[in-house]
């Protein structure tokens, strides 16, 4: 069968009544949308209020961890005797360098998988 349509049915579909425009419908949908938006905002506020004590409780350990990580990042991985070579390799010869390369690798892998 091709895409040909029965002419009598076509005529019937063309002459069939269509739903008339209705402002009440528009008002109802927009009220529904506004309600959903309000519920989302309230949800975020409630979630924020509930998370505040958790954040306060975790802030101490998180700050301590960040300080330790901050101190660790510039540490060299290998001791290089020659000063010039040490300076050239400084960007990669550190915890921060390795972490940066690792993040770059993960990002490129993610891009490859998702595009």
């Amino acid at each position, binding site marked *: *069968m091709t*895409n040909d*349509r*029965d002419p*009598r*049915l*076509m005529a*019937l*579909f063309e*002459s*069939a*009544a*269509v*739903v*008339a*425009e*209705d*402002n009440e*419908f*528009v*008002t*109802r*949908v*927009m009220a*529904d*949308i506004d309600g*959903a938006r309000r519920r989302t905002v309230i949800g975020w506020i409630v979630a924020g209020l509930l998370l505040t004590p958790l954040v306060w409780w975790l802030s101490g350990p998180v700050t301590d961890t960040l300080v330790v990580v901050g101190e660790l990042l510039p540490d060299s991985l290998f001791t290089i005797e020659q000063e010039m070579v040490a300076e050239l390799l400084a960007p990669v010869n550190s915890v921060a360098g390795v972490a940066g390369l690792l993040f770059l690798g993960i990002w490129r892998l993610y891009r490859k998988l998702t595009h």
Partner: protein
Amino acid sequence: MQTDHYTGSAEALLVGLARKGDRDAFAELLRRRQAWVRTLMLRCCNNTTLADDLAQQAFTQAWQKIPQLRRVSRFAPWLKRLAINEWLQHVRKRDPLTNAEDTDLPSQRSDSADVGMDLDQALAQLKDHVRLCIVLSYHEGMTHDEIADFTGIALGTVKSHIRRGTARLQEILAAYDQTSTKENSS
């Protein structure tokens, strides 16, 4: 609903604004497209209340998802897909035993819908997926390939649904013609 300042604006512009969260632009799109979506849903389910509910859900989904719409020129087919998905979800959730309860009784229709009543009642006698293919083909003017792509139904099945649906509608309408001829002559 006050969206007067957008009356006459191009749809692509309205879609672009709605994507950025302009509520009034979306309201204008809704005003322009409501009759089309509600009629499409009515052809699919033959129940005015249900058709309006499904159309409302489709428009609510559209507002939530419109930032993800990449090409503003594709708004109409995208909206149609949302509406059809809403109807398909409704069909999946519905108990097959209550299928018949979905449709309006003839007396529940307003007089203004009399012209379309025979068609919608005839469509209601088709199986859900057959009706969907018929509506997309005849009401929306989509080709078989487009319907297959749009609904995810295999092309062969689409063709067979349309062939069977057309034959069934012809039978129903022929029977209706015979009845009305007898009524008119008596």
